[in-house]
């Protein structure tokens, strides 16, 4: 049913349609409206047979979900930013235990300095944790990806994070089609747990694994992720057949045919980029856009196939590995190894800095690009505050004495 809803409430309704039995969370902006929405659905009886728990910390939230999943019921939680860091030990634990928890991450910057606004730093902090990671471009996708997430998680026996841009999506009112309970029930079968704490068939879950077996555990986890690329793609097509929308899969291309320059992005900024691509093409440009829907497992082959005929790839990324550079752009660089294509990193929107159509357009239109750019950087502040640690002369000698 078509509705005009806040993103967070669309997500809450969508999660409720997946019939979780345990929902637990600890409040942090901008994730709060999601759990408030779910709490209301549960207390009002619209979502039945579900325990809702207010816990004492994010560590508690994910730990409750771990206990519930290990005992054999579908569980859900949500967090953002510092909250994700606070629960990070449990994040690795959940994937190691192969518990198909679904978690929404209302993407937000990481401090210090403290900043409550949107970027993808939090998501990037768990990119190697063994969770599947989806990124939503719109609130329709945010809602749909949660249904897909439960399906993929349970088929893979692996937890899934659905990344939703904090505020930009979580707090925006948009048109969202919320599917019927019947349709979701047909798509998502009841949870058939792989493990459960059963008194009739006792099992020890989470034992120590010594060096003789640990490598194999990790290798199998990696194989599972690689294999599941096909599963995720197929789940996306099945979803499209059932619901008439392409909300899942690995990648989504826009105007890729004959594109010389392809802009790659994740999350809500892809929408703004599409508007820019249209304008540039209208003015005679050859631009395309590629959205990464599934970031983990990393769809290396699919990316390569989509990008190999372009001449230039501009990666617009909302995170920065300090001392390294753009994270996504470097992963794409590895994926494109051997292809004669220029790859440019545009670090944009950190800590909620607005990403505007006009600056993107200006940047995409440039003939020559720096390898990496901070979009809309306030150069006056940088010029004023930047103090080189080593002088140019010292740098040239390749040794840098520690300054007093």
């Amino acid at each position, binding site marked *: 049913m078509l509705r005009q809803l806040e993103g967070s409430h669309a997500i809450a309704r969508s999660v409720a349609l997946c019939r979780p039995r345990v929902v637990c969370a600890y409040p942090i902006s901008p994730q709060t409206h999601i759990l408030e929405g779910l709490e209301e659905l549960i207390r009002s009886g619209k979502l039945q047979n579900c325990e809702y728990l207010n816990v004492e910390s994010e560590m508690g939230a994910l730990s409750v979900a771990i206990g519930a999943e290990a005992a*054999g019921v579908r569980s859900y939680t949500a967090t953002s930013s510092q909250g994700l860091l606070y629960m990070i030990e449990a994040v690795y634990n959940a994937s190691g235990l192969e518990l198909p928890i679904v978690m929404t991450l209302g993407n937000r910057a990481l401090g210090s300095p403290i900043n409550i606004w949107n970027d993808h730093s939090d998501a990037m902090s768990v990119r190697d944790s063994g969770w599947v990671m989806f990124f939503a471009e719109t609130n329709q996708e945010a809602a749909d990806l949660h249904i897909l997430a439960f399906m993929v998680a349970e088929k893979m026996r692996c937890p899934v994070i659905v990344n939703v841009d904090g505020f930009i999506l979580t707090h925006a009112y948009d048109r969202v089609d919320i599917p019927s309970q019947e349709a979701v029930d047909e798509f998502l079968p009841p949870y058939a747990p792989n493990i459960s704490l059963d008194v009739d068939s*006792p099992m*020890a879950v989470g*034992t120590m694994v010594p060096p003789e077996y640990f490598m194999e555990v990790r290798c199998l986890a990696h194989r599972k992720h690689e294999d599941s690329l096909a599963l995720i793609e197929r789940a996306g097509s099945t979803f499209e057949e059932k619901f008439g929308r392409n909300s899942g899969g690995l990648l989504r291309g826009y105007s890729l045919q004959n594109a010389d320059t392809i802009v790659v992005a994740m999350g809500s900024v892809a929408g703004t980029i599409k508007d820019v691509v249209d304008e540039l093409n209208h003015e005679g440009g050859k631009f395309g856009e590629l959205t990464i829907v599934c970031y983990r497992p990393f769809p290396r082959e699919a990316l390569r196939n989509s990008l190999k005929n372009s001449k230039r790839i501009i990666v617009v990324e909302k995170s920065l590995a300090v001392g390294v550079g753009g994270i996504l752009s470097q992963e794409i660089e590895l994926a494109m190894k051997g292809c004669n294509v220029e790859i440019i990193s545009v670090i944009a929107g950190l800590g909620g800095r607005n990403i505007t159509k006009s600056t993107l357009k200006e940047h995409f239109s440039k003939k020559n690009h720096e390898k990496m750019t901070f979009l809309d950087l306030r150069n006056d502040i940088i010029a004023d505050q930047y103090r080189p640690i080593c002088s140019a002369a010292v740098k040239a000698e390749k040794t840098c004495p520690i300054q007093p």
Partner: protein
Amino acid sequence: MSHPTIGNRLVKNVTVQSMRDRPNCLTSGHRACQGCGEALGARCVLDAAYAATGGKIAVVNATGCLEVFSCVYPENSWQVPWLHSLFGNAPAVATGVAAAFKQQGKSDVRIIAQGGDGALSDIGMGCLSGMFERNDDVLCVCYDNQAYMNTGVQRSGATPAFARTATTLPTGNYLGNDAQTGKNLPKIAMAHEIPYVATASIGNIHDLEEKVTKAIHIRGAKYLHVHVPCPLGWGYSPSDTIKIARAAVQCGLFPLFEMERGKIMKSTPIKDPVKVDDYLKSQRRFAHLFGKSASPEALAALQDIADNNIRDYALAENANG
């Protein structure tokens, strides 16, 4: 209940541990040290809970000695459904299990969260407090050996005053762990006014089993604090574990009591008093308080703790009437 083992024939009130077919929830073959108080404590607690529920228990274990020595893949000593997640989250994981069981209509299966003093009084205290505050249907059992034994005997929040650990080595004027320390987790539990809080000792199995049997049937949050000596960390012969455990109770340093909804309901009087000095002398972790560099002040401070316990918990033989 089946037949008591030989030697207990004349004892009317037999313990689960003395049964020939006791459940052995933590069965033999594990890798605990000789004389491990925690292994004994865990077996006693779980066997009693198993017996009281007809085998309907599930266990969530914090990281620590108990987890490490009991199950290194592909071996496993647990005979009950058992889950280990992390060091600091066992009470929260148990809350999740409880929520799931409620949803599955398995309220007859009782849930135990267990861990050491480090897991529960230090790193996991937030999760523990949350579980208490929500009054989740979990029995949390702390096996208190008063330091981080798994990592090599470092000080924990529950380490008693003047004890020597790897991170509180007495040197010069420094007498080991500072005075006025040793976090009192039972009192913290009591402050949450949960339905049931108790202390127990592996030196008194009858008392321990009674408390487990009582606690396991109560709905809501329960806390049991079990004193479990550690031969390696405390410095005594592995054959003396029970003797040391009893001495701690009988000298007044580890009082046995029960609390309900924030009030002390019952305590176990001291029957065979032991001098605090004698209890301390039996362990190398307190050896620096005696001999050449003896500290009468430290000994007096520890004696004070015992005296206060005897007064506050009415532990004198005639106190309970």
